[in-house]
């Protein structure tokens, strides 16, 4: 099978959507520029024309309204933000308008709209460029929220998102863009609202999403070397949330660790733990546990930033605690902990 990078998978899904449906268009700051949103939109304007792939003014709020308005008259926009923080300017349109229209009109008008938001991290980006606010969007009925962790899912989920008839928030972690993986050439869909068991196991369940699923998997591999067989679930969607898959897994393993991609307090992991506890409290051998970004604004300096994120070592430690074990990591195992760059080839800035 063919391997693609995550960013290429996004681009391919976008190209397919543009090719197959004339009502799809793509707009965002820098979409047609030489860097093409970290490569995800490169070449699309020359292929599909400036009337379907285009730049915009730094007017995030209005442009969200524009996307909504165009959807009302038959278009299917994809709107792109290079940082989730820029989307904060458009929360009114996203939450009051897009999320509510179908209901407010008693089903007379739906808003097919994909908003891509990129989550930053590392290389000193600091407090205003590395937040991860998925729990906000997941809190809002009327929105769907998708966060792929692999190139395969990135393509399949984006195609599903564009074909979905509702507003879909599609969040991409910057550190995933250059990861590799199998991606079929054909058009295929990964359904929204279905989690994926990316490693099966029996000793405990680790639930994660987005970039943290990669780290969770690394941790699971390390644990395996220590004789612990964990199951890793990549959520893929936060709304709808696939509690069924999670519950089924935890019923089997009896133990749950949630690795949050954002802050834990009032975050995604709180919801996962509550959903599981409410449903199968009696089957749990111990309390579910969570780790995530430390409860602080993210500092620029790498001297501090590197300590703010969950790492494979921290995940292993948390898992071991759940199992009542102590695991001593080898030097080699500790080495997989990420620093402030996604890989060694990266020389900044984003």
């Amino acid at each position, binding site marked *: 099978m063919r391997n693609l990078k995550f960013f290429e998978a996004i681009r391919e899904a976008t190209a397919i959507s543009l090719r197959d449906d004339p009502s799809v268009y793509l707009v965002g700051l820098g979409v047609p520029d030489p860097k093409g949103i970290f490569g995800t939109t490169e070449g699309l304007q020359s292929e599909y024309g400036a009337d379907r792939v285009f730049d915009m003014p730094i007017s995030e*709020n*209005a442009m969200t309204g524009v996307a909504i*308005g*165009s959807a*009302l008259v*038959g*278009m299917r926009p994809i709107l792109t933000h290079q940082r989730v923080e820029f989307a904060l300017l458009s929360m009114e349109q996203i939450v*009051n*308008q897009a999320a509510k229209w179908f209901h407010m009109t008693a089903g007379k*008008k739906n808003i097919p709209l994909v908003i891509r938001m990129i989550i930053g991290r590392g290389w000193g980006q600091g407090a205003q460029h590395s937040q991860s606010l998925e729990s906000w969007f997941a809190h809002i009925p009327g929105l769907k929220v998708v966060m792929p962790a692999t190139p395969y899912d990135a393509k399949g989920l984006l195609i599903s998102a564009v074909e979905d008839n509702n507003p879909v928030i599609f969040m991409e972690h910057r550190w995933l863009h250059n990861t590799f993986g199998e991606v079929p050439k054909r058009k295929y869909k990964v359904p929204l609202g279905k989690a994926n068991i990316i490693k099966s196991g029996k000793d405990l369940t680790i639930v994660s999403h987005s970039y943290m699923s990669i780290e969770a998997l690394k941790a699971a591999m390390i644990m395996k070397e220590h004789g612990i067989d964990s199951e890793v679930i990549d959520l893929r969607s936060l709304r709808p949330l696939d509690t069924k898959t999670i519950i089924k897994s935890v019923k089997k393993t009896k133990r749950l660790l949630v690795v949050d991609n954002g802050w834990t307090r009032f975050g995604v992991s709180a919801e996962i733990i509550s959903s599981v506890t409410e449903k199968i409290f009696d089957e749990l051998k111990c309390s579910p546990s969570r780790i995530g970004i430390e409860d602080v604004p993210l500092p620029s300096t790498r001297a501090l930033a590197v300590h703010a994120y969950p790492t494979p070592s921290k995940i292993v430690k948390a898992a071991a605690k759940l199992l009542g074990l102590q695991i001593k990591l080898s030097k080699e195992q500790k080495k997989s902990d990420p620093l402030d760059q996604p890989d060694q080839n990266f020389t900044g800035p984003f």
Partner: protein
Amino acid sequence: MDNKLIKDQFFQMLRIRKVELKISELYPEEEMRCPVHLSVGQEAVAVGVCSALQKKDIALSAHRSHAHYLAKGGDLKSMLAELYGKKTGCAEGKGGSMHLIDLEAGLIAAVPIVGSTIPIAVGSAWGNMMQDKSVTTAVFFGEGATETGVFHESLGFASLHNMPMIFVCENNLYSVYSSLEVRQSNKRNNIKIAEGHGIVSLKGEGNDVSSVYGVIKESISIIKKQKGPVYVEFDTYRWLEHCGPNDDDHLGYRKDKEVKKWKINCPIEKTKDYLLNNKLADEKEIQTVSLELDDEIEEAFEFAKTSPFLDKKHLYTSIYSD
């Protein structure tokens, strides 16, 4: 001036006025349990604008939407049923007075967050352009909405892509109880701001339906020629309280003199005088139509009142589209 047109405009304004006053009258029964922002006094803008548009053209409104909805051809029964929260309402009661919609009539949006339909209107114009449809989009908003950032962003994007749309500002001098002077510099000029965006801007007399109509007709021809948006501004006045069925003159936030001046400058009386003076209609004809309107309105209220509510299970329907 087109005689049939002005007569038609007159009766449309009269109809809107009667509907609004009836809402005002019946609201204390506590059956219309939602906020209502009545348009009494501002009928000429709604009717002047919409009578210049075609049916296929699109209009969007904000919180004070009844007049726009009716003038654009929105169904009266559906509107009243919506205010009563009924299943037969234009949004089955889920929307309420602040979310009127009639797709048939081209009134595609009305929402109470100030300024928010302005970019949505730009999107409607943009979407139609992208589909090569020759549709004009008009968006109504108050002068308060010109204070929102999104208004200015919207002017910018509409101008950048030369969109076929009309920004219609109804300046009724107040945002709730707040007068212009606590919100906008007296050196400010929205016409000039819109022109700064490269947008042709016009001003008409907001309480003169013919003036409004003329300005919009001119706007449409400008749009055709220059393929660009137009900004238009009309001064007018709201007679009743900002939200609710009553007048609130006892609160003293508006000078008696001012209120009186504007009430004398009634858009409906003005047009009536014109009709009578030019013998385009006589008192009797007006009386006859007026009674017909009363009947229509009575019937519509009856319809709304006797319509059923949605069933409880519909709390969970139309959340997501398949």
